[in-house]
């Protein structure tokens, strides 16, 4: 069963300092926003795969990707229908429609949609790693280091902690109401949505009860004593962590520099730009790909060293 929560699956990526992971994920996200060229975006997407594989979260990743693929298709269709820009018209509606005018589907609009979908999938793929490979407690501590207020961070961490509990509650209520003759899968979407009200009301009232009980339990363990909190575990950064951190940040700077040189730009409109790269550009792209995986190699290298030391 795919479970959408953090679980240590025992590979070395789970031992990695959360800051390294956050930096690497940040690099991917920034680069995905900086580059326009669909080829570059595709490469970025591919660069997330080794991490997904080594974290052993393929199944969870795949099911989230299915969802983002659906979202991507919607973007492509909507963009094709709504954008009138682009020179190569593939199809044009014979009559002008109310509100929408004449629909012109252009090659450029479709390719633009594909580019945007790739960007979305790259970002979501990186976020998968954030959800599945960083211990929520570590994430909380890291956010705390960023000087975010503790209470705000704690509330969001509690929300993550209770999400599976609420999902369970909701499933039970759905089962109960089915036993009372409610057919959740029948009818138009509106009547379906209306049926979920009878799940939401009990779920809400249960959750309020839970909330009060959690507050009681926290209060009973001296929460909010007014003194500064201490932390049981700090996220420690060792010098080898620092090296991996630098390696994780390096591709981001390289990519931004490439952008500064004019690489990775792409014109979708009015006609599609050329995808061919100069030999310098090819070298730079290769370097970038290598850098994106550098942290990864360092991580394994460190493990080997640690094992040898033992």
């Amino acid at each position, binding site marked *: *069963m795919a479970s959408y*929560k*953090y*679980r*240590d699956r025992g590979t070395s990526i789970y031992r990695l300092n959360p800051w390294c992971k956050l930096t690497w994920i940040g690099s991917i996200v920034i680069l995905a926003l900086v580059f326009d060229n669909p080829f570059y975006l595709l490469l970025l997407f591919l660069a997330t795969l080794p991490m997904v594989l080594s974290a052993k979260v393929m199944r969870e990743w795949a099911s989230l990707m299915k969802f983002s693929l659906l979202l991507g298709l919607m973007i492509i269709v909507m963009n094709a229908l709504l954008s009138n820009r682009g020179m190569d018209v593939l199809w044009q509606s014979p009559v002008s429609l109310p509100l929408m005018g004449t629909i012109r589907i252009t090659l450029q609009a479709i390719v633009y949609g594909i580019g945007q979908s790739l960007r979305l999938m790259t970002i979501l793929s990186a976020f998968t790693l954030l959800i599945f490979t960083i*211990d*929520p*407690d570590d994430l909380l501590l890291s956010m705390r280091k960023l000087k975010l207020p503790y209470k705000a961070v*704690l509330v969001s*961490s*509690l929300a993550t*902690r209770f999400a*599976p*509990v609420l999902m369970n*509650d909701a499933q*039970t*209520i759905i*089962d*109960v*109401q*089915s*036993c*009372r*003759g*409610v*057919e959740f899968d029948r009818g138009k979407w509106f009547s379906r949505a209306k049926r979920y009200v*009878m799940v939401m*009301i*009990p779920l809400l*009232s*249960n959750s309020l*009860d*839970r909330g009060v*009980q*959690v*507050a*009681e*339990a*926290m*209060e*009973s*363990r*001296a*929460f*909010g*004593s*007014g*003194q*500064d*909190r*201490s*932390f*049981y*575990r*700090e996220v420690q950064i060792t010098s080898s962590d620092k090296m991996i951190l630098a390696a994780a940040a390096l591709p981001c700077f390289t990519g931004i520099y490439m952008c500064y040189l004019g690489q990775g730009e792409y014109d979708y409109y009015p006609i599609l730009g050329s995808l061919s790269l100069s030999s310098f550009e090819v070298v730079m792209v290769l370097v970038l790909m290598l850098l994106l995986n550098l942290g990864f190699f360092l991580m394994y290298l460190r493990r080997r060293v640690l094992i040898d030391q033992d």
Partner: protein
Amino acid sequence: MIRIDDLSFRYGGSSQAALCDITLDIDDGEFVLITGLSGGGKSSLCRCLNGLIPHFYGGKISGRVEVAGLDVMKHSTRELATSVGMVFQDPENQLIAFDVEREIAFGLENLSFSPDMMAKRVEEVLDAVNITALRHRHVDELSGGEKQKVAIASVLALYPSILVLDEPTSELDPKGAEEILALVKRLNDEMGITVVLVEHRLERVMAYVDRVVVLDKGKVVADGSPQSVLDEKKLSRAGIGIPPLVALAHGLRDKGIEINDIPLTVKEARAMVIRTLHGKNVEDCVISEKRRDRNVQDQPLLEVKGLWYAYSSDLVALKNVNLQVYPGEFVLLMGRNASGKTTLVKHFNGLLRPTKGDVVLNGINTKGTTVAKLARQVGYVFQNPDEYLFCDTVDEEIAFTLKNIGFGKTDIVRLTDQVLDRFGLMPYKQCYPHSLSGGEKQRVAIASVLASRPSMIVLDEPTRGMEYGLKVQLMKFLDDYRNGGGTVILVTQDVETVVEYGDRVILLSEGRIVVDGTKREVLSRALLLSPQVNRLAQSLRGNGVRGDILTVAEMLSVLP
């Protein structure tokens, strides 16, 4: 040391006092059991001990509560946290962190202990509670009992001298409950921690405690050693469940036999019975079975054929289950946690569909129909009625089910009134379901399922965490339903409650049926599953007592 003087409390917005003139002294190192009916004020009293009342729950309070030298009115719950550790009912709602170590350290962090100090305390507490093996585990991978142990560890980390536990076992299975109680006993014995425990399964805790306090309607109605409190018959009149061995002693006394000490364990009961048997003969009585003979031509109501069910490729919950249930049977489905009981009964009304095999109900294969359609045939009752009552009034709640399964308007009104009448719910017809008491809510929940007159009713652990009076009420009702021709399938681990009812027991283990037989055959041969009276009977076989006696009444009938 706990000193309570003349304490009264009323929750804000309530017209009734939750606690009324309570005066109670608890000495250091005592193990005190607080029991009583729900709504009697047990939880409120606990909340007063660490200042949740009046600091978290507002209301009108008078009197004085002093805990470990601190006046509760003047010190906040946070300040009291290092003196009083509080453990609540639902383990899920007390755990805040994701992993066990950080959970234990949470209280220490709040009080800004140094990392070294925290490491030391965490280590000690892990040992004290004996959960070192769980230290790196994630909280959501733990079983209920393990979670509750972590909750206890997390309050112990603050080194309280008093531990207050408010129904810590009511959400747990019998094994988990047993472990928690043994743990609490050990903490009291070896670490000298004062324990205040709220619990209503008296047969499980009586042997452990030094003192019993019974609360009723906010007042202390009994206070003393377990023997002296159980000696008084007013407890059963107050609706509190008397442990079976105690009931046996009362019964013998009614027969004119002198009983000095009320027995709390099977061992003590055995000594008591041997004393009474001295020089007398065991009466050879024929135990009358309420056997209903099945006609050969009877068609099974429910037929399970070669049922396999897998949640995923590595989690196979049912392995080739074959089963027939005939109309009018009362079946008890028992087994350990995760033995597949719930998975099996969820097939009976189509909530789950077989991975392989068939489930046929009244000639209808569940594969070809919906849960809603099967709802006319099978009533399925879940554990917690709070989870699904959502209408504004009780009669709407019942009409809701009838409307869903396709009854017309006039039928709905007629059937609703009928079922309300049968369940004694008429006075509450226009009430808001959530404002009812626990037992009434359960009755509404069952009524809403039975209004359509299904031929079979399935209940999944309905008595877990329920107080004695309500359990008896529920079981009596099920018996009536069966006597009226209905079929009952009850999933349960609560052998002491169900032993008087039901006629067939099916025992599941690891997804297979291991035993299927009459109640007497199965329950009198099991080791841990046997009720206390049966364990007593088995140990008395050398004295001529039949080994298959199950209930107090049966035992009394064979003793002189």
